[in-house]
C-alpha cells in the first residue's frame, strides 16, 4: 500500500503528525511519498517501521533522528543533523548534506550523492551486529569522524569542485577532506580516496594503505552508491587510504592514580 502526503504549507509538527497517523493506521505500508517538503524538521524522527519514505523538496534539520528502520530517499539536499542518533534503516540523499550528519549513529546506512558539511560522523559507534556506514560521494568538511567509536565512513571524492563552499573550507590542496579528521577517534574505520596531509589528521589516527579485504568492502559500497545514484560514476577501488585509531583507549594514560 502506498501513501502520499503533501507538505505544502504544513508546520513540521503537523506534517510529522500526518506521517504518524498513516503509520498508526497501517504499521508497515510499503511506500510513503512526501511532496513539497520545504524545511520541515524531524521527518522520520523516532519511527520504527519497515517503510520506504520518498521525500521531494529539502527536508529540515534532524531528518531521521532516533530513527529505527525506515528507508528514506531524499531527491534533494538535506540540512543539518540528518540521522542524529539513528539506530537502524537507511537515508539516501540525492544532493548535499549539511553539518553533523549521522551524529552518534549506531546502525543503518547513509548515502550522500555529493558533499557534506562539518562534523560528519561524530561519535559514530557500533554495537553487536550493528555497524553504521556512511558513504559520501563528494567531499567532507572539518572534523570528519571526530570521537568515532565504531562503524565506517567512506569518502569518494567525486563531483570535485562542484561546490564553492567545499573549496572554501577544504583549502586549495586538492584534498577532499577538511582539518581534524578523526580527532579523538577510538574505533571504526574511515576510507578516503587519495591521501590526507598528516597535519589534517587527529593525533589519535594513523593512515594506512588499503588491503584486499578493504577493497572488497569498498567495492560493495561503491556498487551500492552506483545503484542509488546512477552508473555513470567510475568504479575504482584503488587509490584509497584508510584511517584507523592507534588505540581503543586514547585516554588510558591520562590520569594519576
Amino acid at each position, binding site marked *: 500500500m502506498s501513501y502520499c502526503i503533501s507538505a505544502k504549507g504544513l508546520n*513540521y*509538527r503537523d506534517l*510529522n503528525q500526518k506521517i*504518524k497517523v498513516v503509520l498508526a493506521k497501517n504499521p508497515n505500508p510499503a511506500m510513503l511519498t512526501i511532496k513539497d517538503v520545504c524545511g520541515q*524538521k*524531524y521527518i522520520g*524522527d*523516532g519511527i*520504527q517501521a519497515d517503510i520506504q519514505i520518498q521525500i521531494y523538496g529539502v527536508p529540515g*534539520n*534532524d531528518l531521521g*533522528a*532516533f*530513527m*529505527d528502520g525506515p528507508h528514506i530517499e531524499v531527491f534533494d539536499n538535506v540540512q*543539518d*543533523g540528518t540521522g*542524529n*542518533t539513528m*539506530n537502524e534503516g537507511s537515508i539516501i540523499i540525492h544532493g548535499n548534506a549539511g553539518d*553533523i550528519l549521522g*551524529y*552518534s549513529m*549506531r546502525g543503518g546506512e547513509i548515502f550522500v550523492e555529493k558533499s557534506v558539511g562539518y*562534523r560528519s560522523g*561524530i*561519535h559514530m*559507534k*557500533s*554495537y*553487536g551486529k550493528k555497524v553504521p556506514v556512511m558513504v559520501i560521494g563528494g567531499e567532507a568538511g572539518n*572534523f570528519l569522524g*571526530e*570521537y568515532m*567509536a*565504531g562503524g565506517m565512513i567512506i569518502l569518494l571524492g567525486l563531483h570535485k569542485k562542484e561546490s564553492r563552499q567545499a573549496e572554501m573550507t577544504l583549502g586549495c590542496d586538492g584534498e577532499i577532506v577538511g582539518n581534524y579528521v578523526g580527532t*579523538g577517534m*577510538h*574505533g571504526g574505520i574511515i576510507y578516503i580516496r587519495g591521501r590526507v596531509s598528516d597535519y589534517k589528521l587527529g593525533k589519535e589516527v594513523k593512515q594506512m594503505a588499503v588491503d584486499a579485504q578493504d577493497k572488497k568492502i569498498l567495492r560493495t559500497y561503491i556498487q551500492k552508491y552506483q545503484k542509488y545514484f546512477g552508473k555513470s560514476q567510475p568504479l575504482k577501488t584503488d587509490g584509497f587510504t584508510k584511517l584507523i585509531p592507534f588505540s*581503543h*583507549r*586514547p*585516554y*588510558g*594514560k*591520562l*590520569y*594519576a*592514580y
Partner: protein
Amino acid sequence: MALKPRQTDFEVVRDQDKCISCQVCLRQCSNDVHEYDSDQDIIYSDNSQCVGCHRCESLCPTGAMKIKQSESEFRQNFNWSPAHIKNIYKQADSGGVLLTGMGADRPYPIYWDHILFNAAQVTNPSIDPLREPMEIKTFIGNKSDVVGVDIDQGETFNMKLKQDISPQLVLSTPILFSAMSFGSISFNACASLARAARQFGTFYNTGEGGMHKDLEIYASNTIVQVASGRFGVDIDYLKRAAAIEIKIGQGAKPGIGGHLPAEKVTEEVSNARMIPQGTDAISPAPHHDIYSIEDLMQLIYALKEATDYQKPVGVKVSAVHNVAPIASGIVRAGADFVTIDGLRGGTGAAPQAIRDNIGIPIELALASVDTRLREEGIRHKASVIAAGSIRSSADIVKAIALGADAVYIGSAALLALGCNLCQKCYTGKCNWGIATQDPYLTKRLNPNIGTRRLENLLRGWSLEIKEMLGGAGINAIESLRGNREHLRGIGIGEKELAVLGIKHAGEAW
C-alpha cells in the same frame, strides 16, 4: 629520584589484644592493606594503601580496628597544605591528571548553614502534620499560563479543564534520585534506587549509562538521560522512560566530558550503553549538535517529537557564573524542567582541579535562576530541580523556599547505601559494593536492604519536611515554593543576602 611520600593519608590502628586474626579485614579490603602472617598468627597493615573507607573497621567482629586520619609529618605550613604537597609528588611521579570522586570537599561557604527557616507564632497558627493533612506532592513540568474550567451545568456538574495540561511527573515527595549511571555505580546500587523510587512514588535517573534490561520494569519511575555520547539512547529507551533529561553538564565537572575507562566497560555495561566491550566510553565535552540555545531547542523538540509530546523533557546544567541567563534560554527553548547542579555535586570520577574549583554553590545559583525566571515571567514554564549536595531535609526546605520545585539527591542516597565518602569511586574498588563492577564487591550491597534504607531516608526526610512546613503554618509545599520571606541569613554579607534574595536574621517582615 623516588619521592614517594612517606606520609600516608590514614593510619590503621589495630588493638592486638582484641584482634582474633579472623582475617575479615583482609577479605573485605580491595586495596590490599592487610596481610596475614600465619607464622606469627598476626595481621599487618600497610597504611599507604588505605583509602579511609572504614569497611574493615565496620565489619571487625571484635571492634579491634580504627582507621584514623594520619597526622601529617610535614612541617606546618598554612600555604602549602599536606594535600598540595602530596599531589605534587604524585603528579611528578606520574605526569597524570589527578582524579577524585564524590563532591568538592574544600571549605567554601555552605550557604545552607547560613540560612535559617521560619516558624509561626501567635499571628498565624502552626499546624500539626500528624493530625492535619500536609501536602508535599510535587509536579514537575510546564505549567499552563492560565487554567480554565468548563462546568457542565446539567445534573452532574462535571468539570473539564479548558486547556491541555503538559505532561507532568508526579512525585509523592519533592525528592528525586540524581543521575548516576550503571557503570559508575553497580547494578545493585541502581536496582536499589529504582525500587526505592517505585515504592516511594518518586523517580531515579539512569545517568548517561543507558538502562539495564533488568531495570526496564521500573521504567515508569525512571528519568533517562541523553548525553553527548548518546550511550544506550535509542527510541525504545526514550519511549520507555517517564521523562527525558538532556545532560549538558554536571556540578562536579562543568564543561568537561567523561571517560569511562575500558576496564569498567564489562559485558553488562557494554550492553546497557550499546557500545563494544573493552573500549573507553568517551563522552565528548559538548554535544556536538548543540552549540547554541537554538540547537538545544532542536534537540528538545527532536526528543518531544520522538515521544509524541507525552513526557517532560528537561535539561541539566552545572551551576556556572552565567547560570541564570542560561536557564532562561533553556526554558525558552522549551524544556519542561531545568536541573541546576551546584559546585558540591558528586561524581564517580572527575579531575580534582575541576571538581574543587569550577562552578558556584547551588544556593546562589538556585536563587539567581529563580529570580531571573520570575523577572522574565517564565518561571511557570518549567520546573526547577536543585542538585549539588543536599544533605538533609532542612536543606530541602531551604532550597524550595529559595525557588526549587524539587531536589535531586545523589551523594545522600549513596551514603544511605553505605558510602563512607572516601572519594575513591574512580578506582572501581569500592569496598561497599557501590562504585564498582567487581562481582566480589558488588554482592556486598543487597538491593533489598538498599531499597529499604533509601525508602527509610525518603520517609524520614518527608516527615521532617512536613514538620517544618507545619511549624511555619504552611500546609502545602506549593505555598513554600519561592517563599523567601520565610528565610533569613545569618553571618553573611549584604551581597550574599542580595543574591539569595533574603533578609538578615533579626529583620522582621
